[in-house]
């Protein structure tokens, strides 16, 4: 284009007077300046459109936040006033149980949980979740954890749920069933092993996943530990996982919790867990998860030896539907049962079935039926039937999916 202009100018120049030529030259120059000005303007505008942030805005550094709501509608063939004084012989005496979730017939608002995660700096990230129950505020967990330690190590400090076993570290709303496995409830109560302390985890540099961890905890859990004159609880575990083919994976672990109970004597809890997961498609799977826990609790003159297990099978049909069954059983109950003389306290077990519907990825409706044969109600062994519809909502930042 430029060439053409010059060429035509050249042709003109031979035909017309010098003054006219100067005039045209000037006009051309003016046009060039105008173009340059436009270009500068455009450049400035472009610069503007890429950086319009407010000078002191810190929105980009806001932590990830989520609000989790958990509630239920429930029907049970035992009166609320009698149910809340339940006993599980050998484990929980009447009036000693704590029922933070799904206690009442009718409606229950279990909790509103506020979960926060933030990267602190290149070396730490922080997590916290606050449980707001209808009449109680609880720091569920609050801890910092390293991200860049050498030697395959990770350290966590604060209040956290122990990685003992399989289900202990998971939050209630991420369990496959709304109720806690009986053996966990019996040995640890609803919060399971959750304490202030520190944790050290190490991943082995092997092709097979092997992780070992140790934790030093305060040991506030009064059911198994509870001597809190100083930190009394030490937890250790090894977990490993293998894939069998592309779609079947196996995760297993052994755990030990060694602490001091309220009689100043040692308690040891051993755990074995095994999970098999067969992936049937992107949104379809079959998961079989089981745990066995054994407790050796020394008292002043005797030693309690108690154990139990749960085993659950969950079939995820598609994005929206899943269903599952679980069996709970107390396998060993060598303890002083004289308070229950005349009451049948053998064969403590529980059956649970559930179907789940997720209309959207962030909300979940779950209908479950429980046939509970573990409880003494008002001094009598009572089989309890319970039907519950629970609703769980997770709004805000995505929690990544569990394995």
């Amino acid at each position: 284009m430029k060439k053409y202009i010059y060429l035509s100018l050249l042709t003109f120049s031979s035909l017309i007077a010098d003054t006219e030529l100067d005039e045209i030259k000037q006009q051309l120059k003016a046009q060039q300046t105008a173009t340059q000005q436009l270009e500068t303007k455009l450049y400035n505008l472009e610069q503007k459109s890429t950086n319009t942030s407010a000078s002191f805005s810190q929105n980009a550094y806001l932590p990830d936040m989520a609000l989790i709501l958990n509630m239920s509608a429930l029907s049970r063939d035992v009166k609320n006033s009698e149910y809340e004084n339940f006993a599980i012989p050998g484990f929980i005496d009447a009036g000693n149980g704590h029922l933070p979730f799904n206690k009442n017939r009718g409606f229950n608002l279990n909790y509103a949980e506020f979960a926060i995660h933030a990267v602190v700096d290149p070396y730490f990230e922080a997590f916290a979740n606050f449980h707001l129950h209808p009449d109680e505020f609880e720091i569920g967990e609050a801890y910092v954890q390293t991200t860049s330690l050498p030697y395959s190590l990770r350290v966590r400090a604060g209040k956290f749920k122990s990685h003992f076993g399989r289900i202990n570290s998971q939050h209630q709303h991420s369990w496959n069933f709304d109720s806690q496995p009986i053996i966990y409830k019996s040995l640890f109560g609803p919060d399971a092993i959750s304490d202030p302390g520190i944790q050290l985890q190490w991943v082995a540099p092997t092709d097979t996943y092997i992780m070992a961890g140790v934790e030093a905890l305060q040991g506030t859990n009064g059911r198994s530990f509870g001597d809190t004159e100083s930190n009394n609880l030490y937890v250790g575990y090894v977990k490993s996982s293998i894939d069998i083919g592309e779609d079947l994976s196996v995760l297993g672990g052994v755990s030990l919790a060694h602490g001091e109970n309220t009689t100043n004597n040692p308690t040891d809890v051993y755990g074995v867990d095994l999970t098999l997961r067969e992936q049937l498609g992107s949104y379809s799977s079959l998961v079989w998860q089981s745990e066995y826990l054994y407790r050796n609790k020394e008292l002043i003159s005797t030693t309690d030896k108690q154990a139990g297990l749960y085993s659950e099978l969950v079939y995820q049909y598609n994005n929206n539907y899943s269903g599952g069954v679980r069996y709970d059983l107390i396998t060993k109950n060598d303890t002083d049962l004289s308070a229950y003389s005349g009451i049948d306290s053998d064969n403590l077990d529980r059956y649970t079935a559930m179907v789940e519907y997720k209309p959207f990825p962030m909300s979940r409706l779950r209908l479950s039926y429980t046939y509970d044969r573990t409880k003494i109600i008002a001094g009598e062994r009572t089989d309890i039937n319970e039907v519950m519809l629970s609703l769980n909502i997770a709004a805000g930042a995505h929690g990544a999916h569990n394995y």
Partner: protein
Amino acid sequence: MRKIILLTCLLSSMVFASLNVDTTYSTMGTVTKKIGGDLVNVTVLGSPKYDPHFIVPKPSLLAKLHRADLLIMNGGGLELGWLPPLIRSANNAKIQNGAKGFLDMSHFVHMIDVPSSVSRGFGDVHAQGNPHYSTDPYVIPVMAKAIEAKLAELDPENSLVYKENLDKFLTEWSSYLKTFDAKMAMCKDKNVVQYHELFNYFLKRYEYKSFGNIEPLPGISPSSKHTIELINTMKKNSVKIILQDVYHEKKTAKFIADKTGAKVSVIPHDEKAVKDADTLKNFYNTIADRICQ
């Protein structure tokens, strides 16, 4: 002297023969192999037969992440549902966000479909724009250059090898793109619908027009109301091609095909997502063969 230097270079290159590179998806893994050659061990974390948004976070992936010198991820939120807890538990300082061995490929790609406002009321939208850029064959050179730069940064002794591999690959790819574009130029019918907005980059590149999605909102299962609306739109605009991915249910697409006379084409979203897409070129060839009518 020169001989000694050469010898040292040779020896050191033999000693540090391999970088362990993990990529979240298959296409990026293969590009990494093209650039890294024998100097890299590539592990693909996410199986191409499954939904890339929801890779199952198997613990075995932790062992793979733990041994990685470099993690190359797609970014743009595609791994949000599975990767962060794995990185957290792999105890590998090298591949933490911000570390030298962490590469987010979306930072090199011009993202399209960036929403001006985001709400979960619109479904599980990609807040940072559409992350499914791998379906555009023109993104491959962008990936290759970014990977070459990163490998050279991590392994400077072998930077010349990476550069050589890159140049060779870019030449090969640009001639492939010429034949590929020529093939795409033969396609007449440019009206499509798709299940999820997986193929927008490809559609934009080859001037296709997408008239809607089978899912009513991102990540939400089809509803009969939305399906009927989609059928009407397709009839009105004579849309005859339904782009189905490998991992979603195929019933809805078949139903729509029956009502509209359209054809269901199963399009791979990643290399190796279908049998025919076994190589990088065959990945795009398969897309072309199945989309072009």
